[in-house]
């Protein structure tokens, strides 16, 4: 998967080979792998070690009397998991679930939850030391820091705890 993340520029290729030689442990202190996904036009990243799996086309059982961003519960091989729609959680308009809509199952402490996202992009290795806090006036509900990728995109790092706070 590093192939997909480390794309292209020669400079980067060199860095990449170095990384392979010196082996990651020395670097792992500050680098981490993030799964990025798009929801409501924003790109988010979530640490891969919190991701259990990605599922699509799952039947969601809606629940009465919950906020709209709680889409309901699913039966994942006998486990009952709640599904939170990231778009709605951000206060953006709802988009019907299609085949590209994904549910990412996350392990948040004791709980497992699923988050509904527009689409899943890729796995990125990023240097978390380079992450910068989001300016206060632009603060997002679900992210506290952001990071720029080599391609010039900005990834917001998802704060899983904020996600489950009501």
């Amino acid at each position, binding site marked *: 998967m590093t192939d997909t993340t480390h794309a292209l520029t020669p400079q980067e290729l060199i860095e990449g080979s170095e990384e392979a030689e010196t082996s990651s442990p020395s670097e792992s202190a500050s680098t981490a792998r993030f799964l990025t996904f798009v929801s409501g036009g924003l790109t988010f990243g979530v640490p891969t070690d919190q991701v259990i799996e990605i599922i699509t086309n799952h*039947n969601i*059982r*809606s*629940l*009465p*009397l*919950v*906020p709209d961003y*709680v889409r309901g*519960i*699913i*039966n994942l091989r*006998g486990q*009952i*998991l*709640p599904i939170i729609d990231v778009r709605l959680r951000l206060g953006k308009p709802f988009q019907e679930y299609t085949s590209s809509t994904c549910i990412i199952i996350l392990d948040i402490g*004791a*709980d*497992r*939850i699923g988050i509904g996202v527009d689409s899943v992009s890729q796995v990125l290795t990023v240097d978390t030391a380079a992450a910068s806090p989001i300016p206060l006036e632009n603060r997002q509900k679900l992210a506290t820091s952001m990071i720029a990728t080599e391609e010039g995109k900005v990834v917001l790092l998802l704060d899983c705890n904020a996600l*489950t*706070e*009501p």
Partner: protein
Amino acid sequence: MDNVTDSLLDTYLFETNSLLEQLDELLINAEKNGDFTEDDVNEIFRSMHTIKGSSAMLEFNSLMEIAHHIEDLFFYIRENGTSSLNPQQKGELFNLMFKSEDRLREEVEKVENNEPLSVNIDSFIQEINNFLNKISNSGNAAQGEAKAAEELKNTDTPPFTSPEAAYCIRLFFDEGCGMENLRAFMLVTALKENGYTFTYSPQDIETDSGTSQSIINDGFFIGFSSKEEAEKASLLIAGSNNVHSYELIEKHEEEASPGSSAVQQNEAGTQKQADTPSPKNAAVHTAGKQNLISVNLAKLDSLMALVGEIVITESMVTSSPDLKGLKLDNFMKSARQLRKLTDDLQDISMSLRMVPVSGVFQKMNRIVRDMKKTLDKDVRLTLIGEDTELDKSIVDSISDPIMHIVRNSMDHGIEATREERIAAGKNPQGEIILSAVHTGNEIIISVKDDGQGVNPQKVLEKAQRNNFLSKPAEEYTKKEILSLLMEPGFSTNNEVTEYSGRGVGMDVVKKNIEAIGGVVSISSEEGEGTCTTLKIPLTLAIVDGMEISVGNSVYTVPISNIRQSFKASRDSIIFDDSGHEIIRCMDEFYPVVRLHDLYGIYDNVCTEIDDGILMWVEANDISYCLFVDQLLGEQQVVVKPLPGYLNNFSIKNYGVSGCTILGDGNISIILDIASIYSAVKNTY
């Protein structure tokens, strides 16, 4: 290493707790009979011995000390027979034993909670010793003489006189390790388990702690008939704990070889003799080990969950839509077979969790006994249906409620004095009947006393004084008045006593019982007694449910809540003054609750009474009609709790109590009839 100690500790706690429970039962029965039988004395002696031994192994000194002194006490009693005690001494003995039992329990609790054990138990030990001194005063002289003689015999160092012990191992334990006799006994048991035949000296190591001294001084002797055996055994001995040194002694070599048949015979004889001190003990232990094992409850829970999954998956496979319209004779045959097997599997895994309520019931004996003493009331407790079985988790959670109710009955149910009872024309001895009956899906547990009963007028007055009434006092029925007793903060007793009257009794009972899906009701006739009834579901994991649909969603209503389902027409609906719908069933009027209104379901839903169906439901003392679209059919469902995250939203207060997975893999929500009603009432 930690794991080993942990499991050892678990075993220890389990063993000690069950021994204490047995002891409790035994003491209660013995006190009832006013005397210890010989068996009782032996039993107490044995269990104290076990507790002492295992506590010493785990270095729980306070437990060991207490058990040790009780053991000494019962050693004396066993030697002299209970007849040597006068009635007053027996009474003291019972009190002392109950006290010791409590003391042991306290210590065990501390072990359980990882708290430091009591260090200063000298005063208590002193108490036991004083009692022992008191009762042994008379026979002291004779006892002393016998002891002296015994000691003399011991110091004689006669390892073995019998010829079969040609090869003898003499071993010493580490200096100052303590309990030498027990350590020797453990060694003997280990050797026996490994199939060695041998004799040993001193003989009564298990029961006489006095042998410790002789083992320290002269060593412990184990005699074998052949050299090979002795050598093999010495390896095992070398590997045992605390063995300081051992030596193999060969002797009587010439004597042993001739007349081998005679030796053989002799051996059998002594072997038997060696075994005699403990055959009963061994029998008791092995019987327990063979028939019962203790399993972590979490394992059973996951087994149950897995079996639930299998049941669901099985019906998913056999009723798969892919099979529709196909003629599959062989498949259907195998499917039926599979269904039968999964049903059996489910039954068995359920029954694994079932335990009799007798454990809880027996505890009440003790409570009644203690309260009898402090309140000075003469009451007998009758237990009925002790062997009724209930889910383990339920049994655990009904113990406190039942205790509360029994205390209530003792404290303000039964009349304060005999004279009062005689004046009322009753047997001077009060009676509390604790019974458990199994009816279909429920267990009914009732606590009935023949005391003074409840005066509804007084309850009403008190409720009025404390502002508990929600409607004019005249409108209260007797049933409603009695259920006022279960309101938080309500207590009829004017004085607060040690046991009850603080007004935190019955509401806690009600809450605890409702938490496990049960119902509490009180009935009482003034002057004749009070009966508190607990209706408790057999198990929480599986519910008989009715599948219903509202809009596009499926819900499950527990069958036990449904009284009747019926079609109604527009005209039969009546409106109250605020516009809420009411319907008449069986000459009574009940409110209509529209589930789609409550849950805000608008798509594809029946809104006309004529199109849908009314379900007359009942929970506790609430009764109303639920309006739903359609009945889909009855099904046994495995209850799954909702994900913890959803507790952030108060859906539990709106009747969503759990969920279940249907045969097709979809999720159905299980409705809680009582909380739907309170939710609707709040919206009014």
